[in-house]
């Protein structure tokens, strides 16, 4: 992987070879681009604020005035097409959601592990292994789901292939960087590599086994079966030594084999059973000596069979029948098993097979640092141009070339590059790549993945999490930018978006969203909800305006219907923290108290009603335009049979009336104007009440 370039990067798109998607229906006939362009036409576009969708239309190049009047226009000129790179298919939804949960858990785990240094590494590796396994289980589930689809189309087949690749790559990374580093487990990579090989590249063996060994064939049936020897060789390559031993044992009694072939088959079968297996109790030295012993026996076998073949070749002069074939195959198998690299290379079809057999039979205790040397020698024998992206990714990983590895992972799938770079970061192997790339790969891939989910109606929340859990400045800013663009289709969705803002402390976004929701609900007449939103951002002015609107509605209709609204607002404000200040908002207090006044009056509790009315006036919470109405409301109480207002109270009322009259004279405003006749009635009522109150008190 070369270091970051310093020269300008030039990239040429060859229009003739470009694989473009065609608009349907198209805007001009095939091959007539230059004609279309010469008719003052070009393509214009506008990008969707949230997803990568683009609106396309025909645009002109010259001003209309400079065109002649008889310029033709076509129907296509008036169409707008909306296009976009396809978002995730529904078949992946469950997988995306499952792995998102694992991702979030992994971030939390690493944060907690990081906080406590003493247990960091111990918790870290085991935790990472656990998480890695959870990811793989999700991949396996998805693979099963895809396999279960009856009559799969091309897309499903590609998806199945992709998930196999994703699993293979992930599993190998887990083995190299996690499993072999787990305290308590052997550090040899060989058994894990064989497990990986057999788990991810299984197909041929499974089919063959059924075709050959299924149905309990006799020894002769086995010997007659042409597929037998290739199958047995594959068993050897893949390390299925006990199965190989059993098969040879079953084959040996066959009459179709020569005596020597039968003898060597039995002998080899016994050797298979004696193959040393490493255990974590054993020291490396002890295992190595057992291995050498076994290897020597195999070498003896191979040499003996080789001699026999040589003799037979001389005698028959090349007219070998089945007997020779069996012996040749036995020779090949023993050569493979004693670790002869040429034999392994000759028998292996895939480079992975050769790699596995080389590790298993020639370096059974190899550690991960031996991999680059081995894989280099093996890959030379293959045509690299025929490699798939999966092959390239695996080879790069075995070479410990992690930057190259990541690039190929991205070619396989964007989900893979994002999550694997995250895992690599937690394993602390990503720093090497950071020096190679221009940008932080983890941030780059996670952000790309997150952005791709934002336009999806079910995945936007997942997308926002990926942006937020980047834990970088850019990720947070991008997230804040996008969170205000999520369409707030329903109350529930709005709540979810606000929850995201809370979790990631996006204060600006939260502010904007509350204000937007407040305005929306205000326009729709949901005044209580609007007030609640404005209270969250302490927008007292807007609340005041809404209160004015409520009051004006009451005045024009004459019916006080806002009671439940106010109750709802006050109730919700006492529950939520942010809007505690609601209780102190003058406009709301005024409306609330005025409603109480109405209720008391309607219930006939005139004295209490009067007290409430007076307190409204004394606390000065009533807006100026409402004062006149309040004074008019006091008239029936002043005139009523019961004495409601004492002399002081009456003086207060008169004082309010006086200041109202003065301010009206000063400003010659009509707000809260109380017309002369009402003023006169009020004054008379006050005087009468005063007279009464002096007498009674």
């Amino acid at each position, binding site marked *: 992987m070369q270091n*970051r*370039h*310093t020269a*300008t*990067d*030039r*990239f*040429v*798109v060859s*229009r003739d070879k*470009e*694989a*473009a*998607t*065609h608009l*349907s*229906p198209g*805007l*001009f*006939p*095939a091959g007539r*681009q230059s004609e*279309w*362009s010469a008719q003052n*036409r*070009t*393509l*214009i*576009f*506008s*990008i969707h*604020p*949230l997803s*990568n969708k*683009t609106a*396309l239309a025909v645009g002109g190049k010259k*001003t209309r005035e400079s065109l002649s009047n008889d310029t033709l226009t076509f129907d296509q000129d008036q169409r707008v097409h909306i*296009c976009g*790179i396809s978002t995730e298919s529904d078949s992946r939804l469950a997988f995306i959601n499952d792995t998102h949960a694992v991702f979030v858990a992994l971030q939390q785990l690493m944060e907690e592990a990081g906080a406590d240094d003493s247990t960091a590494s111990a918790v870290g590796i085991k935790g990472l292994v656990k998480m890695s396994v959870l990811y793989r289980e999700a991949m396996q589930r998805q693979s099963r789901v895809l396999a279960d689809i009856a009559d799969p189309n091309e897309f499903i087949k590609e998806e199945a292939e992709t998930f196999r690749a994703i699993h293979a790559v992930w599993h190998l990374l887990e083995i190299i960087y996690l499993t072999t580093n787990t305290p308590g487990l052997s550090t040899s990579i060989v058994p894990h590599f064989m497990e990986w090989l057999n788990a991810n590249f299984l197909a041929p063996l499974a089919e063959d086994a059924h075709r050959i060994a299924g149905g309990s064939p006799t020894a002769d049936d086995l010997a007659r079966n042409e597929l037998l020897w290739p199958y047995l060789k594959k068993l050897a390559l893949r390390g299925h030594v006990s199965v190989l031993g059993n098969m040879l044992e079953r084959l040996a009694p066959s009459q179709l084999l020569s005596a020597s072939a039968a003898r060597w088959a039995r002998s080899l079968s016994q050797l298979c059973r004696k193959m040393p297996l490493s255990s974590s109790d054993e020291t490396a030295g002890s295992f190595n000596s057992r291995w050498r012993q076994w290897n020597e026996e195999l070498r003896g076998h191979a040499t003996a069979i080789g001699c026999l073949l040589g003799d037979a070749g001389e005698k028959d002069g090349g007219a070998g029948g089945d007997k020779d074939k069996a012996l040749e195959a036995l020779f090949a198998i023993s050569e493979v098993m004693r670790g002869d690299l040429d034999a392994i290379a000759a028998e292996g079809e895939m480079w992975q097979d050769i790699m596995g057999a080389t590790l298993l039979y020639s370096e059974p205790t190899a550690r991960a640092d031996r991999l680059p040397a081995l894989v280099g020698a093996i890959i030379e024998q293959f045509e690299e141009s025929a490699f798939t992206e999966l092959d390239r990714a695996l080879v790069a990983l075995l070479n410990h070339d992690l930057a190259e590895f*990541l*690039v190929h992972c991205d070619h396989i799938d964007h989900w893979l590059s994002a999550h694997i770079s995250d895992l690599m970061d937690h394993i602390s192997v990503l720093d090497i790549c*950071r*020096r190679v*790339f*221009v*940008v*932080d790969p983890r941030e*780059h*891939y996670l952000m*790309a993945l997150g*952005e791709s989910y934002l336009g999806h109606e079910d995945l936007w929340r997942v997308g926002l999490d990926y942006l937020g859990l980047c834990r*970088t*400045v*850019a*990720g947070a*800013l*991008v997230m804040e*930018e*996008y969170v205000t*663009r999520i369409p707030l289709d329903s109350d529930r969705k709005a709540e979810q978006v606000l929850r995201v803002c809370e979790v990631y402390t996006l204060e600006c976004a939260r502010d904007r969203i509350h204000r937007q929701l407040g305005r929306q609900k205000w326009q729709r007449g949901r005044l209580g909800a609007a007030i609640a939103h404005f209270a969250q951002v302490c927008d007292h002015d807007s609340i005041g305006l809404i209160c004015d609107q409520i009051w004006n509605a009451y005045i024009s209709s004459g019916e006080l219907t806002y009671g439940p609204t106010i109750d709802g607002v006050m109730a919700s404000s006492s529950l939520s923290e942010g809007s505690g200040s609601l209780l102190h908002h003058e406009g709301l207090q005024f409306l609330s108290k005025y409603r109480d006044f109405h209720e008391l009056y309607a219930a006939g509790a005139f004295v209490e009603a009067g007290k409430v009315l007076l307190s409204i006036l004394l606390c000065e919470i009533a807006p100026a335009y409402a004062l006149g109405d309040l004074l008019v409301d006091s008239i029936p109480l002043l005139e009523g049979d019961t004495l409601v207002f004492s002399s002081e109270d009456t003086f207060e009322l008169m004082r309010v009336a006086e200041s109202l009259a003065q301010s009206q004279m000063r400003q010659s405003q009509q707000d809260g104007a109380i017309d002369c006749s009402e003023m006169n009635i009020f004054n008379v009522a006050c005087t009468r009440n005063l007279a009464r109150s002096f007498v009674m008190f």
Partner: protein
Amino acid sequence: SVSVLNESTCAVHSIAFAPEYIHLALAAASSDGRVRFYSPTDVIGLTNWTASGSIEFIPGGASDSDGPLCLSWCKSRFSTKSMIVIGGSKGNKVKVYQRDNVQQWDEIYQLDSYDAFVLDIDWAPSMGRSYHLIATACSDGHIRIYKFWPEPTHLSAELTDSLFIREGDEFDNEELGSAPHVEAGNGGYSDESDVDDDEDGEDASDEGSSDSDSDDDSDGSTSESGDDARPDRSGRAKGSGKKSKAKGDGGAGKAWVPRSELVGDLIVDPQVPIRRVRWNSTGTLLVSSSDDGVARMWKMSVNGTWREIAAITAEKSSAEA
């Protein structure tokens, strides 16, 4: 219509509203080589707009035959002064202007000049990057992408002595690619943390510096010595005796000048005029359209190279009747 602005006597090629962080303003580029700015006197009614400054992009004027003029505002909310990039007309130059006070715009940098008409230009939202991205579309079939570092903010002047600038570094040295990270203030939270908080600005400065780390476009050697100069948790920088090339604060060394780098030259072959380029809302996707009726989408790879990820053509497919 609410209002008609007719100060310009020539064709108006490009208009753009200022970003919402700046007060409401409209820039209009016309083929006489001038860019005029308008602001409304009444922000609610919007019926009355007045001219509030102009830029004479082509001294001596120009005409329609000299080619169109295009412009794009800088959308970053962290820049201390408003900036606008203008390109096209006579000379086919692309220049960045900065506003000093309400009506005065000064040219601060010439990004490039071409042999072909500049048909469109777009300034990407900065989104935490320590540099700006500007894309130009030309009639020669090239889309060019520039990184641009304008003047640093006051905060970065504080950090000048500390981060990643080593003694003996040439100012134009690629290694000094870390120098713009000092302007993490341009894009990051470090701008939001007060200068006064420098002593305690843990989270913000850390995020700023970790962004610098990850965005480091120098090779390994810088990171190694960068380890020594990395600020400690308190946000204050450890000097360890590093001399600084000061940022115009009158100290030792040269004053900062804006600089740019052409990071991507995307060529459509055979040549066809590229009419329009636009960044998406986070500057991670670039879309272009050209006279061949093809809209192309471009994304930056992890290597910093820009590659086409999709193309949509308006041409009917051969399968279509």
